[in-house]
């Protein structure tokens, strides 16, 4: 197990190299002189020169990359072109809200999709199952921004149950924090609920006709326990593979949701920085998201081996 973990960690090195090259290239792939782009049409030659020096753009490109990576490894992500604050500080300041929405929506996804999947399998010979499939399909195909507006109209404007927008840090009261997160997190979760519930249901239906389930029934085990213990835990194995994709979906989704609900998280930071052409921040945020994604997938792989004793590496 330890050996496998170490091997998996080493396999991250080439992945991270490629990611860093792509992130680094962002600034160079946009046509024209980056310093020019950042400062706008009527910037003076002098200020452009100055910025080029600050960003290291006057050096050969390979040197630029090497220096950039060196700085990042030592924790220096550069400075915001817009506010001159260190990029790392800005990102860390925005972490809380994004982290909060993501966690709350992951909890929502699990709490909602697991019982739904179990119910769909429990009542698999009734109309509940086709109904479930249609709804989950609907859930997957609804555009997030449209659903967000619908919910805000319904549950924040017409029936003012939830706040329209905004974010309260957890330190200012856990109830207020959660209260402001429910709507945005639910919008974020909606798409994934359909996906995860569908994966779970398919996995359970696959497992429910297996010989070992017949064995469990032949022992006289209650059908509810057969489903929740034997069928469900086998269905979890294929479902974990979509968790990586799910986290990617959530992180991408926060960009839209944070903008719509004016939540000062990383997604909003990214959008703002794109408007301001604040390349160091754009690079920092994207690098950060990529790293989170890679780590989540590593954890999923390890979880996978933990769930399925047949592929436990020892």
């Amino acid at each position, binding site marked *: 197990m330890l050996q496998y973990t170490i091997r998996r960690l080493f396999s991250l090195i080439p992945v991270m190299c490629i990611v860093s090259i792509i992130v680094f290239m962002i600034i160079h792939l946009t046509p024209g002189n980056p310093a020019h782009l950042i400062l706008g049409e009527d910037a003076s030659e002098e200020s452009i020169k100055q910025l080029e020096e600050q960003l290291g753009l006057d050096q050969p490109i390979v040197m630029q990359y090497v220096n950039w990576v060196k700085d990042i490894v030592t924790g220096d992500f550069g400075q915001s072109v817009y506010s001159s604050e260190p990029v790392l500080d800005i990102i860390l300041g925005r972490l809380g809200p994004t982290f909060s929405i993501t966690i709350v929506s992951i909890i929502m996804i699990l709490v909602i999709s697991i019982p739904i999947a179990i119910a769909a399998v429990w009542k698999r010979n009734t109309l509940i199952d086709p109904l479930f499939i249609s709804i989950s399909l609907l859930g997957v195909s609804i555009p997030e921004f449209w659903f967000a507006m619908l919910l805000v109209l319904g549950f924040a404007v017409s029936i003012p149950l939830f706040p329209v927008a905004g974010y309260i840090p957890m330190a200012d009261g856990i109830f207020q924090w959660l209260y402001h997160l429910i709507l945005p997190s639910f919008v974020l979760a909606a798409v994934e609920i359909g996906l995860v519930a569908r994966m779970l249901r398919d996995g359970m239906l696959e497992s429910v006709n297996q*010989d*070992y389930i017949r*064995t469990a029934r032949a022992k*006289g085990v*209650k059908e509810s326990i057969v489903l929740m213990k034997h069928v469900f835990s*086998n269905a979890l194995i294929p479902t974990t593979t979509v968790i990586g994709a799910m986290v990617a979906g959530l992180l991408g989704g926060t960009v839209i949701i944070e903008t719509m609900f004016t939540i000062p998280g990383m997604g909003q930071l990214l959008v703002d920085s794109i408007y301001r052409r604040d390349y160091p921040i754009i690079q920092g945020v994207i690098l950060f998201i990529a790293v989170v994604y890679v780590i989540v997938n590593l954890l999923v792989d390890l979880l996978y081996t933990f769930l399925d*004793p047949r592929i436990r590496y020892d």
Partner: protein
Amino acid sequence: MLEVKNLKAYIDTPAGIVKAVDDVSFSLKAGETIGIVGESGSGKSVLALSLMQLNPSPPTFYPQGEILLEGKNLLHLKEKELRNLRGNDIAMIFQDPMSSLNPIFKIGTQLMEAIRTHQNINRAEAKKKAIVLLKDVGISDPERRMNDYPHQLSGGMRQRVMIAIALAGKPKILIADEPTTALDVTIQAQILDLMKDIQKKYGTAIIIITHDLGVVAQLADKIVVMYSGRIVEEGKTEDIFYHTAMPYTWSLLRSMPRIDTSSRERLIPIQGQPPNLVSPPEGCNFNPRCPFATADCLKIDPSLTERGVGHYAACILSEKIFEEGKLQLENFETKGVPL
């Protein structure tokens, strides 16, 4: 103890209604071993699963019959009453020990679950009982084996674990659906020996399902021969082997290696295909494949008639015609004497 009367188990499929078990009756006394034999697709497994009410339903349904276990008709029991019965009064082991154990739980966990489902005891006591059971089924070092996952055991070991699970509730009846088919020959013999020992030790009645007559010859007091969902011959093991009264049984015997006679005899496969169970042939179901079929066989659907004490067969041919036919056929096959 167990009495099956005129049982029908049909399966509703897109192709039509499969008459997997069609008007089957037999009985089993305490401690007795009965063998159910027949080709693949003859309805043996559906019959066995009916006895535990474990056929998936829908699509399976029971349009007729009774399954009486000590007077109670299983077809009328509620789900909860059936659960109390499964693993407790009737237990079952299956053909493929590779897939019959849950791959993600330790075998100790699965065995203890069987124990604790019917006995109100704590984990520590259940663990002790589980270790004893594993020892009883011939697993060495049971304490350590408790922590193994199914994939860490060989096929024979897994079947032993399945037997231990089945024995957990000290059942009166053990149904073994092809318990040795997936195992290699030496392991087969070990598992059969184990079943004999178990029967002696626990006094369990056994229903053993197989298409291997060698297996039933060793174990069974009584044999039931199934063909296309029906019983076509039934009797004491000696009667089935030495006073065969139904051409299908005879063909089945000829198609299998015998352990009691010289093995130089040629094996002769049964010609043709098993019938379609959605629309079986007119008359006797076996007539398209029967070497002795007469014009009457195409019209008359034979029912079981008594051929000796406790020996029944479903065939309209007289004993004389059957004997003559067999002789002619054998002469033709061995010496080329024309029919």
